[in-house]
């Protein structure tokens, strides 16, 4: 890379600093604010053109389960927002196979397209990241 002369060149600047960000989602969608907070940070991160991955592990897999009904708990059902991620160019969604199986779920129960990875592959993917944010 050539040395910058101080001029503002967005393309050069951003292409030089793309990092691999992983957002790890481990908690059920409601009951704590973690899932919603994670989703909001993910949406904001999209503005910075980084290499963003989302990982759903443990009860986090429930965040993207179809058919969430929240009337009974008086919360907003924010699960449709996961379907907007594609429009934000966030298309790397990974779900841990074991976590799905332990909860009797399959890929067909999820409301977005994901890649299902084994626990070992998920660990390897985490190893590749520059930044990991765990929610």
């Amino acid at each position, binding site marked *: 890379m050539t040395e910058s002369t101080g001029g503002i060149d967005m393309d050069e600047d951003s292409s030089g600093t793309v990092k691999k960000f992983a957002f790890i989602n481990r908690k059920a969608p409601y009951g704590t604010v973690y899932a919603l907070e994670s989703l909001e940070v993910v*949406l*904001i991160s*999209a*503005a910075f053109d980084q290499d963003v991955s989302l990982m759903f592990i443990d009860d986090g897999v429930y965040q993207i389960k179809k058919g969430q009904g929240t009337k009974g708990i008086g919360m907003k059902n*924010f699960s*449709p927002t996961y379907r*907007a991620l594609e*429009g*934000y160019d966030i298309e790397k969604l990974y779900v841990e196979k074991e976590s799905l199986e332990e909860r009797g779920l399959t890929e067909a129960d999820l409301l977005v397209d994901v890649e299902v990875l084994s626990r070992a592959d998920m660990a390897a993917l985490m190893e590749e990241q520059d930044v990991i944010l765990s929610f």
Partner: protein
Amino acid sequence: MGFEINGKTYETDEEGYLVNLAEWDEEAAKYLAKEEKVEMTESHWEVVNFLREYYNDYQIAPAVRVLTKAIGKKLGPEKGNSKYLYELFPYGPAKQACKIAGLPKPTGCI
């Protein structure tokens, strides 16, 4: 805070966004547009209605980049570009159009 039209009251937050999405109607949109000094034409309504549909589908107000792309996909490339949208909403399509559409301030709008 809020405003009143024909005896119906609308609650707004400190930045003028409607608090309750369900209260929105055409009259509210016209009032909010006037506040933003936007003269509503058919093209403006097209964007506002698009935003309401987007919100209905995804439960968020889109960032401007996402809005531009989504509009291009649905209404054609001559409308899915910043120039067209900024001509309609000079102070930012996501911000102004969202406000008129009764949506919350877009996430990721910095």
